[in-house]
Structures are given as structure tokens and as C-alpha cells.
């Protein structure tokens, strides 16, 4: 199965983070057919949070996102080890392409994960779990201290990730107005949370 690379402007300069990713991909490829466990672990550690975020966005499930992280990294490492990645300098796009295809595959074939795990058993670190480090007492106080409209918009937005156009229709205001209130609310909330 082909995993399409996401489009990226090759003229765009890479930053330090990208350089590290690329160097790790090249190390894994250069070590083949042997393994470079340190480079593989570093690559997994760096990309796991990004894949998890993508999985949460697309699948809206912590468990499904965690599964996706493991599946994408297993397949990516297998491709890198076998030299099936033509452009390691585009490793991020390569992983995104895999992740996008995996989401489609996951919906199409729920048995894929079990087969992959059987074929490429790896000791991957568990996905970076969402740890709610927010002081709940402080957050409650800061939410209550917000102007009513900002609190209402934040609550109605984040209860079930409601988009601005939907909320704007219900409130009789424009989507842009909702975004402005939302933005102000988040800023005021952070200001309060950081004011110790």
C-alpha cells in the first residue's frame, strides 16, 4: 500500500527541530539491516505527541489516538529499516501521510492494529498521556472570575468542541464575534491562572 507524502515546499528552510528529526531518520536508515535502538527511541519520543494530537483531532478518542501512535510508529520504523523512505529529509510529511492513511484504514478495517502488532512487535514507549496538571480549584476560581459572556462561550465551546459558526447561530452573533470572545476569554483565563 502506498502512503502519499504530504505536500511541503522544499524551498522552505528547516528549523532545528526538523533537522533533528531528519538526522534521526537518516541514522535509522544508515544502520540497516542492523537497528539503531537509540535513534529509533528518540524518533518515537519526538513524534509520538504529534501523532497523538493528530489522532485526537481525527478520532476524538484517547484510546484510538494511542493506538494510532503505536501503529504509525511501527510502520514508519519498518519502512525506515528497509530503506523504503525515499526522502528522509521529509520524514515529518512521511509520518503525516502514514497517519492520514491509517485513520482511513482504521475506519475501514478494525483488525489492522492486531495484525501489525503481531508482525512488528516493538517495545514502544506508551503514548504521552494527557495529564491534567491544571489546578482545578484555581481553574474554577479563574473561570468564575471571567466576564459572563467569555465564560459562557468557553464552556459551550470546550464542552464538546463546538465550532464558532454553530455557537454564533445559537447566540445570534457572528462566528467572528464568537472567535474574538473565545480568544479574549482564553487570554484572561491564562492571565488569571498565571497570576500567583
Amino acid at each position, binding site marked *: 500500500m502506498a502512503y502519499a507524502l504530504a505536500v511541503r515546499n522544499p524551498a522552505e528552510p528547516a528549523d532545528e527541530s526538523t533537522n533533528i528529526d531528519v538526522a534521526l531518520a537518516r541514522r535509522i536508515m544508515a544502520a540497516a539491516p542492523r537497528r539503531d535502538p537509540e535513534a529509533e527511541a528518540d524518533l518515537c519520543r519526538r513524534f509520538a505527541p*504529534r501523532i497523538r*494530537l493528530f489522532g485526537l483531532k481525527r478520532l476524538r478518542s484517547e484510546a484510538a489516538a494511542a493506538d494510532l501512535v503505536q501503529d504509525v510508529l511501527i510502520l514508519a520504523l519498518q519502512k525506515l529499516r528497509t530503506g523504503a523512505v525515499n526522502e528522509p529529509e521529509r520524514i515529518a510529511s512521511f509520518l503525516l501521510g502514514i497517519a492520514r492513511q491509517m485513520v482511513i484504514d482504521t475506519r475501514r478495517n478494525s483488525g489492522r492494529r492486531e495484525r501489525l502488532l503481531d508482525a512488528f512487535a516493538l517495545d514502544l514507549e506508551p503514548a504521552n498521556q494527557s495529564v*491534567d496538571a491544571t489546578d482545578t480549584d484555581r481553574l474554577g476560581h479563574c473561570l468564575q472570575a471571567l466576564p459572563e459572556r467569555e*465564560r*459562557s462561550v468557553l464552556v459551550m465551546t470546550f464542552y464538546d468542541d463546538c465550532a464558532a*459558526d454553530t455557537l454564533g447561530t445559537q447566540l445570534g452573533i457572528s462566528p467572528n464575534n464568537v472567535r474574538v470572545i473565545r*480568544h479574549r476569554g482564553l487570554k484572561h483565563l491564562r492571565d488569571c491562572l498565571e497570576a500567583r
Partner: protein
Amino acid sequence: MKHEHDEAALLSYWLDELDEAAAAEVEEHLFECDECAARLREIVRLGGAIRQTLLDGRIATAVTPAFIGRLKDGGLCLREYRLEPGDSVYCTIAPQDDFVISRLRAPLEGVRQLDLVIDAQGRQHRAAHVPFDAASGEVTFIPPAAALRTLGTETQRMRLIAVTPGAERVIGEYTFNHQPFL
């Protein structure tokens, strides 16, 4: 690499507000940029904490009737009190209730700014610019369930005030006689 995606764009991506091309652009950037991915993760984490604070009954807030529908769709147990202007009601919160909902009926046509004044426990609190859906003809308010559970017998009064430049008009007064659940 230029980190061109500000918080507003990241949040719009998360909430599916961007068109397909813009969403793909943000998505690609997030896979390449640790910094922006971390910023979005922080937004998502804060959003989850806001949701949990609501579910824990730790905040009072006005919402829309449509939002109440979303709570019901989520399987939450709601105890609702619908009052016309001038009404008084005996109310409580049962152990199985997730939320108590105050539905304040009011003539909202033409109202631009609405304030809610709450008199409780000898103190007065005024919330300005309360959001409302004028077509529904009611203001929907969620008091903090956690605080309600600790209340004894107590009377709370709410007033809705339509505000125009230089003038205010009370459009509804409501009395809640709270009693602990027996």
C-alpha cells in the same frame, strides 16, 4: 521555519472551522513543528479542564437552550425549573442530578444587552452581557451543582435586566426557594 500559526488558527483547526486546504496546511506544520504542536496540546488540555470543571459542578454560567440539549444528549441527568416572570419555585438537587437548570422565561425581543442579578446569602452578584437566544424566549442558567449540594434552606432571587444606553429595565424577577434533598 516561521511559526505563522497563532493560537486562533490552531484552535480553529482543532474545532474544524478551517476549510480543507487551510486545515491540511496547519496539520502539516504541526507534524514538523514541536513548538506549535505543544501550543495546541496546551489549548486542548486547557479545554478539557474547562469541560471537567463544568461537569464537576464548580462554576455557574449562562448557556443556550441548545447547549442544554447537548448535555442531555451526553446522557447527563438534569433537573430543570422553568419560571415565568414573577414566579417562585421550591427547588433542590438530588444525588443523581448532574445539573440543575434554571430556565428563566422573559420577553427578549429587541434586547441587546442582558444582565443577570443574583441575590443570595446576603450578597448581590451582577453578571453583565449574559448570552441568550432571543428566539427561545428564555435565559438558561446553570448554578454550580457542587455548591448547591452544600446549601441548606435558602432563598435566591434572580432578576433579568435589559440594558440600553442610559437606561435599564427589569424584564423578569424569579425566586428560588432551595431545600436540601430529603
